[in-house]
């Protein structure tokens, strides 16, 4: 008998006392916590990102290239890795050398890169989380892991949801996803949180809104 059959047989015998169908799971929990306007949801995202030591910037689409350029310059970044589908104008105002994300690049090469710039799939306001799912403007998982500085652009309010349940609704389970809430951290020394272990130690999130005033979204 294979171990597969052995384990499945043990499970069935173990459950011999269980009879009849059980009812559906009661999901009496909330889809989101509290009521907020679109703007308040974006504000909450900014607040919770900052609470876990992400550095938050806000700008309009027209200002984005300048902001990204400034953040890379302030960091002194000479090399920046870019996903294949990153909008070219996001990096229009930087002198840093652009290293495209490609399948052949080795972890060692990535280790010599200073920064990475990506978009995201969705952001969760209640938890201060950005989620990457390998989309064209996000690239392979490792490019947001090995460099020590990550700039992540979130389109607000379109890419922002309130809660974890709403974020899962928007994601495709077949794509690998990475949920990021602040920079790398640990609680392993005396159960106290310290930022900065293996992942990027600096996480900058740029919340970019459309050029028109965002009041239009509320009407």
């Amino acid at each position, binding site marked *: 008998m294979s171990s597969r059959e052995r384990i499945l047989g043990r499970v069935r015998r173990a459950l011999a006392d269980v009879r009849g169908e059980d009812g559906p799971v009661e999901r009496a929990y909330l889809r989101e916590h509290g009521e907020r306007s679109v703007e308040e949801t974006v504000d909450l995202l900014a607040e919770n990102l900052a609470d876990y030591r992400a550095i938050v910037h806000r700008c309009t689409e027209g200002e984005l290239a300048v902001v990204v350029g400034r953040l890379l310059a302030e960091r002194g970044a000479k090399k920046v890795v870019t996903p294949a589908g990153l909008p070219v104008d996001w990096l229009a105002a930087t002198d840093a050398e652009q290293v495209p994300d490609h399948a052949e690049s080795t972890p060692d090469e990535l280790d010599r890169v200073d920064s990475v710039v990506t978009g995201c799939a969705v952001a969760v306001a209640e938890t201060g989380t950005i989620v990457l799912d390998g989309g064209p403007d996000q690239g392979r998982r*490792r490019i947001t892991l*090995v460099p020590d500085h990550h700039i992540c652009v979130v389109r607000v309010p379109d890419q922002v949801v309130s809660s974890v349940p709403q974020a899962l609704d928007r994601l495709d389970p*077949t794509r690998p996803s990475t949920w990021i809430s602040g920079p790398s951290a640990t609680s392993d020394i005396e159960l106290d949180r310290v930022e900065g272990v293996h992942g990027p130690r600096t996480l900058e999130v740029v919340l970019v809104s459309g050029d028109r005033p965002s009041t239009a979204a509320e009407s």
Partner: protein
Amino acid sequence: MSGTFVGMPAFPAAAHEAVNNQTLRGNLRHATHTIRAKRAKAVAEVSDWAALREAGKQIKDHTLRHLDRYLVQLEESVTAAGGTVHWAADADEANRIVTRLVKETGEPEVVKVKSMATQEIGLNEALEAEGIRAYETDLAELIVQLGKDRPSHILVPAIHRNRGEIRDIFRREMGEWGRPAPEGLTDTPAELAEAARLHLREKFLRAKVGVSGANFMVAETGTLVVVESEGNGRMCLTLPETLISVVGIEKIVPTWRDLEVFLQTLPRSSTAERMNPYTSMWTGTTDGDGPQTFHLVLLDNGRTDTLADEVGRQALRCIRCSACLNVCPVYERAGGHAYGSVYPGPIGAILSPQLRGTQSEIDASLPYASSLCGACYEVCPVAIDIPEVLVHLRERVVEGGEAVRNGNKVLLKPAKGHAAERAAMRAARWAFSHPAALRTGQRLASRSRRLHPRTLPGPGRAWSGTRDLPAVPAEPFRDWWQRTNGGKGGAK
């Protein structure tokens, strides 16, 4: 489960030693009190905590009730997504499978994400015996591995170490395993974390094989989920060419949607955060991104035996958050090592004797490693009634009876060392079913109460060594009731 720490004394002996270690008690008190207040705050932030807890409990119960169906569904989903599924009935089989898979890659080393399942089966030792070096990459696991120590907490295996001890271990041992600790390393947590970053980076960058566990496996999609903080998990899950995940069969949830419950309750219960820094989800393999070979080893190792126990099976709902350890007054004083298992604290006291059976001295003593205060049940995000299972297991230890071991029904003998308890219970049963004898005995006790000793003689000495004997009243209750007509008319 084969993970009994060899030669482990029973809990009382091990705990006795631990409570006399002042440094250990200080470290544990500091850490558990820090996290307790934070957890309470993180939980209070969500108004629907009770509903999330109930849903988590129901999802897990439903999964366990149909575990055979969901295991088969998971196997199909993972296989369809490009993974290979292996089944391991016990620790030895899991170790053999993983060792073979690593050998097939030709690599002499693996990097590991912190995983309770691989701790449980003793994978590192099994790999070492075959000439394969396993590097632990979680900071606390690294501290334990470098210190040639044993884990003492589910989430923070090195919780028994303070910053000064960690600095000394890093200075002394890092050079033996790779890049030495930086010159002049101090004991500030940020510097210690930096030292770990530098030490492990070269290992991540050259790693070809990663070994992990998983917090959740989604049956309908074949998705695995790893929840972590440092980024070492992401390194091990994405940089190597081959990924091997060893996961207990109870880690399944049926649907993608079910994650919405646990991704809210797990971080708040474990590290007291709204969300942990990094969560990785992957479904089989993805072309050009991450490991191109993925193996999932499904581990039984006593889980189906636990499932066969109608009261005890709720322990399989556990999502390994460790909230019960952090609130437990016994854990806080005795520390994790006294539990003689990779699963310490209240959950360990009900999980280890079920996974391993109650035959060994340590496992027979674990159901007693509790004051039954119930704080563990209160904080459990999947509502495991740990006190209920503890009492149930005490009965099994004292009375023996039917249980399932390795898939077979066995009749357990009553454990040794509980003769006095059994005799007392037998005497009580006889007295309560013989009213005349009970009455005579009670009157005799009342009249002789001035002569009662303050401690019990003989086998009762140990029991009364830590407890006051109850004072016997001047008049038995039943005599008082008859004399006063049930207290009517205010008679005393």
